[in-house]
């Protein structure tokens, strides 16, 4: 059943792991066996099989959509695929395995609910397995699947499966963020335990990969805790004649976390002004309450000077505010990161200048420990840095809030995106000394 006609939930997942572990083949297999492929796609696959594959269809060709990828038989950039079963809709990101394309792996993984890390059963755990599992954890992806692939090449031996599982379970406690971790023995090439149950794994009692994707609990993946609303766009109709529009002053944005209600008291930061929600305006009518990740337009009781980049927050749990920041970053440029360099930092709906004050330490991908002492980061290094921003930033720790705890660094001049950053929790939160709105 290729599509469903009823509104259902979306699960976003990505495949990661080293080159040739079978990521692209697995996605091809999922699409093929769940009957999500159309005839012209199968035809195109078969056509390219005749030319390049000696008659064998290559499932990886379904996602390796660039000419350079097909020529080299590798994945360079993320490919997104879409399929649906009667239970869920899926947005799939097939991410590259090469270390040099880690930036693209991070791109595909950053919005996922679930990551599938593939391991080649013959090779077992290698550095890329640890790196990608580490990145998935660092990005705060709640659900993890370790798919031990190519089981057909190790005679479907349970001992081999268990060996690899043990090795991963040894380092998982260091990562300690996944809400659930599932180990599944599969053959992406032959389709065992992908959509259909394998007859070679009587010793495995868990679900197939697709059954797990259909059933894993994701309703609580969105953050409904502390209300945060980065103002994206000031909505001010320039209409002097219509009485409703004449005075309309809305603040448009997407709720980054929490729930907001009409009549609720809020603070506008960084100005520290307390006010009340007058209306939650949408094209489809006003709402009594709204929640993450809805896009709405908020009207406040008082006419305060607010612009893009300001943040409206709930009073029950306040964010941090400061210009000295510490963060984990994944460095994505071939030009090294060094202390003293200036970048643009984009956080929520604002961009400001920032300078790197310190390179604290780098993760050793063998041990997953933070090692102090590097003077610079090279492409694909992950580590901890200190930053100073030109103006105070209103933020949360990444572990409590993925959207107000993250930033990107942009190189000045080239405008290249050079880092993904995850902020450590603020040492202190905003002090509640608001200037109440003076009347």
């Amino acid at each position, binding site marked *: 059943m*290729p*599509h*469903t*006609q009823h509104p*259902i*939930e*979306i699960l976003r997942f990505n495949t990661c792991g080293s080159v040739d572990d079978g990521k692209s083949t697995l996605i091809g297999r999922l699409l093929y066996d769940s009957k999500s492929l*159309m*005839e*012209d*796609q199968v035809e195109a696959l078969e056509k*390219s099989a005749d030319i390049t594959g000696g008659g064998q269809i290559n499932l990886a060709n*379904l*996602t390796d*959509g*660039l*000419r*350079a990828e097909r020529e080299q038989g590798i994945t*360079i950039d993320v*490919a*997104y*695929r*879409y399929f649906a079963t009667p239970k869920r809709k899926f947005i799939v990101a097939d991410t590259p395995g090469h270390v040099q394309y880690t930036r*693209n792996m991070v*791109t595909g993984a*950053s*919005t996922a609910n679930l990551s599938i890390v593939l391991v080649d059963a013959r090779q077992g755990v290698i550095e890329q397995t640890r790196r990608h599992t580490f990145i998935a954890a660092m990005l705060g992806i709640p659900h993890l699947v370790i798919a031990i692939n190519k089981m057909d090449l190790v005679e479907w031996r349970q001992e081999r499966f268990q060996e690899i599982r043990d090795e991963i379970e040894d380092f998982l406690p260091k990562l300690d963020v996944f809400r659930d971790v599932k180990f599944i023995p599969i053959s992406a090439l032959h389709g065992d335990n992908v959509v259909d149950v394998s007859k070679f794994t009587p010793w495995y009692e868990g679900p197939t990969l697709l059954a797990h994707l259909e059933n894993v609990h994701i*309703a609580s993946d*969105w953050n*409904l805790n502390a209300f945060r609303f980065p103002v*994206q*766009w000031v*909505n001010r109709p*320039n209409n002097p004649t219509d009485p*409703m529009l004449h005075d*309309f002053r809305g603040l*448009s*944005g*997407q709720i980054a976390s929490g*729930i907001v209600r009409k009549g609720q008291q809020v603070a506008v930061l960084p100005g520290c002004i307390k006010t009340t929600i007058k209306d939650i305006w949408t*094209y*489809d009518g006003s709402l009594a309450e709204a*929640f993450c*990740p*809805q*896009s709405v337009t908020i009207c406040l009781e008082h006419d305060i000077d607010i612009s*893009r980049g300001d943040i409206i927050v709930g009073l029950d749990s306040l964010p941090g505010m400061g210009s000295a920041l510490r963060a984990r970053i994944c460095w*994505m440029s071939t030009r090294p990161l060094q202390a003293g360099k200036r970048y*643009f930092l*984009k*956080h929520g709906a604002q*961009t400001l200048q920032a300078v790197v004050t310190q390179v604290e330490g780098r993760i050793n991908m063998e041990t997953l420990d933070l090692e102090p002492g590097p003077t610079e980061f090279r492409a694909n290094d992950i580590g901890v840095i200190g930053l100073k921003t030109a103006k105070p930033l209103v933020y949360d720790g990444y572990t409590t809030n993925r*959207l107000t705890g*993250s930033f*990107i660094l*942009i190189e000045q001049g080239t*405008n*290249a*995106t050079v880092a*993904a950053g995850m902020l450590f929790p603020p040492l202190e939160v905003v002090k509640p000394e608001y200037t109440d709105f003076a009347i």
Partner: protein
Amino acid sequence: MSSYHLDHLQYLETEAIHIMREVAGEFERPALLFSGGKDSICLLRLSEKAFRPSDLPMPFLNIETGHEFPELIEFRDRRAKELGAKLIVRTVDEAIQKGWATPARGEISRNKLQIPALLGAIEEFQFDCAIGGARRDEEKARAKERFFSFRDSFGQWDPKAQRPEIWNLYNARVNPGENMRVFPLSNWTEMDVWQYIKKEHLAVPTIYFSHERECFRRGGQWIPVPPPHADATKPDPYAGARPKPTEPLKQLVVRVRTIADMISTGMIESPADSVDDIIGEVSAARVTERGTRADDKASEAAMEDRKKAGYF
């Protein structure tokens, strides 16, 4: 499931609205590419949701090949007017006259000639961003594209050096002369688009619904017979696109599934005459919508090559 929960259309909608507001917040002179086709019809509704009660903060832009279905043009103009938006139309003909575009000998499709016409319009109006309705599920080069797709000063896409796009933090910075293409519907499928049209009660051009039309068979597709050559003082704009004696005409009950222009759109035989029928048809379909586009059948990398050169 808690009540604080979005279904898949609501999720896709909020993602797209966020992106459109980022465009309004980050760019000086954005434009929205509006063709009158089903994807850009959804974009229009999303722009209303993003920006109302204000006026839409960007004009609409359309590049005509000169072979448009008249129903589509009529629909496009009417919608722009209803929404109070400024509509800018530039044509391939103008681009040819100005010497920006040169038709390849023997090629009848003007699809590729839209590229210089689009780049010309971007330069003329100094647009730094163009919002388009492309979806990743349409084609495998598109499946690789970012929401914010950077174009250099020649309008080119470099698929091997795309900016990483992490969380919902879009890097919208461009230098003068460069621009951004933004695709809010990236994560939408053909099914999502029709379900959204149904949910929002959006009007679509009548050619999406089943009607009688004279067609001829070419390249494995049913191609509509072009309108008669009215002005004999000018060269026939449809020269080469008219049926040859070896291509007999047939009166069929057809509709379009995806719209390019008249000479590159294959009609599908279909009795679907309501949005519900279309949804039923899409869910039972066994070929992708691009399977009906002559322009994509050229080669496996046809779309990638056009995109590198500056296509939508």
